[in-house]
């Protein structure tokens, strides 16, 4: 067991930086950028934790992890115990340890945040999950009383996986439906390998299958069978089909050959592994100068993927300024390190093409910031006559997604709002149809993995309450 160090020493220590792959190297490969803490680094970092009597960090964790407890186990060098502690509530620790915006959640509440050096909770979580996987340590299967009720979970992204796992732990029979040929949702089609290796996603899904969850791929709920039809065979349904429909800017030239939605671009590269073409059959087209429109995490992922696939220049084109960038700071930092060029205060108004349908450039306007808008950010205003042409031969629209109506239109009596998202009760995630619950991006639009995980947990509890009180969706 590592030594417990005095509080004074704990506060004096600096946060252990994350070892990372050199930017000059990593732009030529798809391997993970952060390399993970070593055992010694993890212990050193864990020793900094003040083990607060009333820990605030826990309140900032939608996955409800007992953070100080697992960190203490790291200090004690009992990594298996640390892993089991996390697994009590988080079914996807290697994933959340990597992609959660901890700076907005647990770490924001850490008492040491005041000194700008919060405990690196995410990195520690990742360390523990990776250690368990590498050492073949598995969570114990909970002793459960098998229930006779069956639950259908629609969508195998983070919300669906979490809800399915939590219900399986309670003894329910869970069928998890996925439209694509591989489970994981955005974790496999959206987030690139260099941020979230797919072997890790596969592994954590396998662990959830060990709990008894049955994963059914190639099943498009809403097309293969309707939600109404599923409702005849299941006692409860959780809809977590995501907000998968891509937005376009609706400017001229957007259907030219080298214009991608970020969804298409990333799906080809991540899910279909077009980066390994022709070993894998799915092709992807890469220009010399790629412009990604938007500045969220998905935009950073797209621009960085374009670079790795061989674009000589990869631009981010964003209508607001550096200050308003919605992506995680870490992602922006990584993008900058890799040489992504940012065009701030720039609004594309037209994509230029030749007579073969090829992209040859993009006409843009310069913007300036005005008064704050309803989002609280300063509104970008076009500067008249500031038109200029950006030389690009490929464009990726990464300006957001919205609800795909396939699932909703097959679900009678499940209310949606004006954007097509399911309307739910905040505390239970219950929809307007008794026995049908919904969570993840399909109730709020694209957000984070961890908010989807949080919804999955809340819904699982509400479904448990619904079923244990003897109710069912099925007519008996």
């Amino acid at each position, binding site marked *: 067991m590592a030594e417990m160090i005095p509080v004074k020493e704990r506060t004096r220590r600096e946060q252990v930086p994350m070892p990372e792959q050199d930017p000059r190297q990593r732009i030529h490969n798809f391997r993970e950028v952060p390399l993970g803490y070593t055992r010694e680094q993890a212990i050193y970092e864990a020793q900094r934790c003040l083990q607060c009597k009333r820990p605030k960090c826990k309140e900032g964790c939608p996955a409800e992890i007992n953070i100080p407890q697992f960190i203490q186990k790291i200090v004690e060098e009992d990594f298996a115990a640390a892993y089991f502690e996390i697994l009590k509530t988080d079914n996807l620790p290697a994933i959340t340890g990597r992609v959660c915006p901890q700076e907005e959640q647990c770490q924001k509440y850490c008492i040491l945040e005041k000194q700008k050096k919060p405990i690196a909770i995410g990195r520690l979580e990742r360390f523990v999950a990776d250690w368990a996987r590498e050492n073949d340590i598995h969570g114990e299967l909970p002793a459960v009383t098998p229930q006779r009720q069956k639950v259908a979970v629609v969508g195998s992204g983070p919300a669906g996986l979490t809800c399915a796992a939590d219900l399986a732990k309670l003894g329910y029979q869970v069928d998890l439906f996925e439209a694509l040929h591989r489970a994981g949702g955005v974790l496999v089609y959206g987030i690139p390998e260099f941020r979230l290796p797919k072997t890790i996603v596969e592994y954590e899904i396998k662990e959830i299958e060990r709990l008894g969850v049955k994963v059914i791929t*190639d099943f498009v709920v809403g*097309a293969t069978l309707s939600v109404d039809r599923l409702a005849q065979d299941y006692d409860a349904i959780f809809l977590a089909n995501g907000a998968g429909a891509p937005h376009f800017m609706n400017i001229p030239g957007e259907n030219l050959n080298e214009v991608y939605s970020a969804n298409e671009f990333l799906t080809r590269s991540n899910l279909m592994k077009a980066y390994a073409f*022709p070993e894998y059959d799915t092709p992807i*087209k890469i220009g010399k100068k790629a412009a990604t429109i938007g500045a969220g995490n998905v935009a950073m992922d797209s621009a960085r993927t374009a670079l790795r696939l061989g674009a000589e220049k990869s631009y981010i084109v964003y209508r607001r300024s550096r200050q308003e960038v919605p992506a995680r700071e870490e992602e922006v930092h990584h993008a900058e390190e890799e040489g992504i060029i940012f065009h701030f205060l720039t609004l594309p108004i037209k994509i230029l093409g030749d007579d073969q349908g090829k992209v040859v450039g993009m006409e843009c306007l310069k913007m300036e910031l005005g008064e704050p808008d309803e989002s609280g950010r300063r509104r970008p205003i076009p500067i008249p006559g500031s038109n200029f042409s950006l030389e690009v031969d490929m464009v990726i629209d990464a300006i957001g997604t919205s609800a795909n109506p396939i699932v909703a239109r097959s679900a009678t009596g499940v209310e949606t709002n004006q954007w097509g998202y399911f309307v739910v009760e905040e505390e239970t995630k219950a929809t307007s149809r008794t026995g049908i619950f919904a969570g993840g991006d399909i109730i709020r639009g694209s957000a984070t993995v961890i908010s989807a995980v949080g919804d999955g947990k809340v819904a699982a509890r509400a479904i448990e309450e619904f079923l244990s009180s003897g109710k069912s969706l099925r007519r008996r």
Partner: protein
Amino acid sequence: MYQIVQKEKLHEIIYSMWIEAPQVAQSVQPGQFIILMVKEKGERIPLTVADFDREKGLIRIVFQIVGKTTEELSTLEEGDRLFSFIGPLGRKSEIEHYGTVVTVGGGTGIACIHPISRALKEAGNKVISIIGARTKELIIMEEELREASSYLWITTDDGSYGRQGFVTQVLKELLEQDKTIKKVWSIGPAIMMRVTCETTRPYAVDTLVSLNSVMVDGTGMCGSCRVTMGGETKFVCTDGPEFDGQLVDWIEFMHRLSRYQEAEKRSWDLYHELNHPCTCGRRTN
């Protein structure tokens, strides 16, 4: 799942397969399509459903070898299984009692108009089908189409079978003679569908085409299949695959079909180098 229960070679480069997919067979309607993967490292390709048997839980696909994936698919035998098979995707054809309708099929499009023609006939329509190909051997599913429609016309470019000429020549004659034709369905190569629309335009007869865009997921997630329809962007996978042919921006559609031509050729050439040194079946359509 997804076992090939029956395989038939309709022509040197055209194959028919019945695939075991009970859930798809249970829900499928004429006009819809499926997406399949031959193997784990394969690509996802859409194919319009050529027939289905709900009781036996089978879907029939008909495809022509046009690249690596279709060639690999053609090498699978009865008893083999596909890696992935999803559906039914897209909107179904609007089958109603219209009166007299014409269905036009070219190449493997002949297979696609088969279930639509049959459903239209069952709905009480007088269904005139016109099927065409370059030459006699490429005319497929003649008996099925004869059964599925009220009248069947056959054309070949070289005159080796049926009428010599294009499907659109017969269509034009029919439109001249029979003013009661209410609707035309046209499925085949992009150029054929485009010419069909030009043929019907002066007669103001509703003309539906089924677009075979490049897709990835096929469920509305990626937008790879987008087309411009009367100035508005639509997704073939969820808004289609059938559209009012008069509204399609055909030039853009054809440009987008060629998006991956170079990569596809590279992939196919490599496949031949590695697996199949001769060049049989390696014709273009």
